């Protein structure tokens, strides 16, 4: 027979797992300080574990937790006030809004998490601090987990987080969703942080990485949250881009951690569920003007995802999407990718002319993938000496072990 107090304990733990970051976001707004809110959150859950088994699980557990956390924080301030002037206490208590101003459920709570994301990704904070704060405060990762994920020393990372929190408090970075006229620019900063987190997880996914927190999964989780909170085109575009890349994860490396090129991947290993969700997001992104850079990159990934095999890839469509991308976000790396797509559409000679022109401009001279692309095109044209030279150039700039092994294999397979 089920034990009601055990059931209440399970309920509390379940609510903690699902709701603690949302409760935290609301407490930050009410209490105006990360550390006070963190303490209040833990006090509230401790109270839940004590009281719910006796009094039953409240009807609105989240509202109960917010209100209990706020009460505990005020109580804590009062107790500490024995050591400070009553005037200071009065100011501190006055600064805490009445809980009736904080409806316990629905819209307002979603807004609290959005406020907190915009605070954590505020451009007045350094990018690495934005990333660390977002993972800590929105995703609820521990400092140790974040340090491990970025191969940073925990002490250094902890200090970065402490400094960022101090700046938020002392310079008074507000907890608010930016107004219409600033939303686009500020949303860009948030999306950039999410994409940084994703790429860190995606490109580092090899070898010893199995023990690291899965940053790509966290980024996709953030992407889903943002889609709910800010259903703008680029929010859908970024989520689609991440899902479509993630869908290839199992196929893009060998069990030994070696890279497998897109055209050589076993497409049966691609995650169909993620592709379906990604394609749906691309559709939603295109339904919203203006079409941005994440959406266009997602559309390119979607074109690959829907090709039954590499030879069936719709290269004219991919070239057209790169043309649009160049207009939205001109960059030499985009030009390079376009050149590779042109080579697939019109043949290696046409692609090589574009890559050589790009390299001659000097922007990509130190970018290993530019030399690798040149090497590949030369090989396809049978110019093996030039291919060899370009692979050596690529190797001199490549840093990551799996990429170096890939280039060495390519170099080794050239006819002598």
């Amino acid at each position, binding site marked *: 027979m089920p034990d009601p107090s055990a059931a209440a304990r399970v309920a509390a733990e379940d609510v903690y797992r699902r709701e603690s970051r949302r409760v935290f976001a609301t407490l930050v707004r009410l209490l105006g300080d990360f550390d006070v809110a963190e303490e209040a959150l833990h006090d509230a859950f401790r109270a839940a574990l004590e009281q719910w088994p006796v009094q039953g699980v409240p009807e609105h557990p989240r509202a109960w937790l917010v209100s209990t956390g706020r009460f505990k924080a005020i109580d804590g301030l009062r107790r500490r006030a024995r050591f400070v002037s009553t005037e200071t206490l009065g100011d501190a208590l006055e600064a805490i809004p009445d809980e009736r101003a904080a409806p316990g459920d629905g819209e307002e709570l979603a807004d609290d998490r959005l406020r907190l994301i915009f605070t954590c990704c*505020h451009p*007045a904070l350094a990018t690495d601090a934005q990333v660390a704060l977002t993972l800590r405060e929105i995703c609820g990762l521990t400092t140790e987990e974040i340090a491990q994920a970025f191969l940073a020393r925990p002490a250094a990372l902890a200090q970065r987080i402490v400094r960022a929190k101090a700046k938020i408090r*002392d*310079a*008074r*970075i*507000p907890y*608010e969703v*930016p107004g219409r006229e600033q939303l686009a620019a500020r949303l860009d900063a948030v999306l950039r942080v999410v994409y940084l987190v994703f790429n860190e997880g995606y490109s580092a996914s090899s070898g010893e990485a199995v023990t690291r927190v899965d940053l790509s999964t966290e980024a996709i989780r953030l992407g889903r949250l943002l889609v709910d909170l800010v259903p703008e085109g680029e929010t859908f575009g970024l989520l689609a881009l991440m899902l479509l890349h993630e869908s290839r994860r199992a196929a893009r490396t060998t069990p030994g951690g070696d890279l497998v090129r897109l055209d050589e991947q076993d497409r049966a290993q691609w995650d169909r569920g993620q592709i379906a969700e990604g394609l749906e997001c691309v559709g939603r992104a295109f339904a919203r003007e203006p079409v941005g850079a994440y959406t266009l990159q997602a559309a390119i990934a979607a074109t690959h995802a829907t090709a039954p095999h590499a030879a069936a890839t719709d290269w004219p469509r991919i070239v057209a999407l790169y043309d649009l991308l160049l207009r939205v976000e001109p960059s030499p790396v985009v030009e390079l990718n376009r050149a590779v797509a042109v080579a697939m559409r019109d043949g290696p000679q046409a692609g090589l002319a574009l890559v050589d022109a790009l390299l001659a401009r000097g922007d990509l001279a130190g970018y290993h993938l530019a030399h690798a692309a040149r090497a590949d095109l030369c090989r396809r044209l049978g110019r093996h000496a030039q291919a060899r030279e370009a692979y050596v150039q690529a190797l001199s700039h490549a840093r990551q072990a799996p990429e170096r092994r890939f280039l060495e294999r390519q170099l080794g397979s050239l006819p002598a």
Partner: protein
Amino acid sequence: MKYACLVYLDETLRETVPDRECKAFGDGLRARGCLLGGEALRPSHTATVVRVRNGGVALTDGPFAETKEQLAGFYLIDATDLNEAIQIAARIPPARVGSIEVRPVRELDAG
């Protein structure tokens, strides 16, 4: 909350920002109650740096570092939060050619 907006500027570009534009901007801020004080400064070669070391006053001429941008003026503003302060700072005319450092004012703890 009070913020100091410190205006840094390559002094050779000073003439590109007309005084009358800065005057009008300051008057507008003052009318809205956002401007608590502020001045334009003479060029950095007129500066004297004061330090007290070992009980004695040590003076050196000129600014601290050999940077291209020098402190050209400052505004003391009143803003609700950093977002409002940034909005005001972004409208300070020399923000176009120099840079504005926004610093929260630390109230002295005299008690």
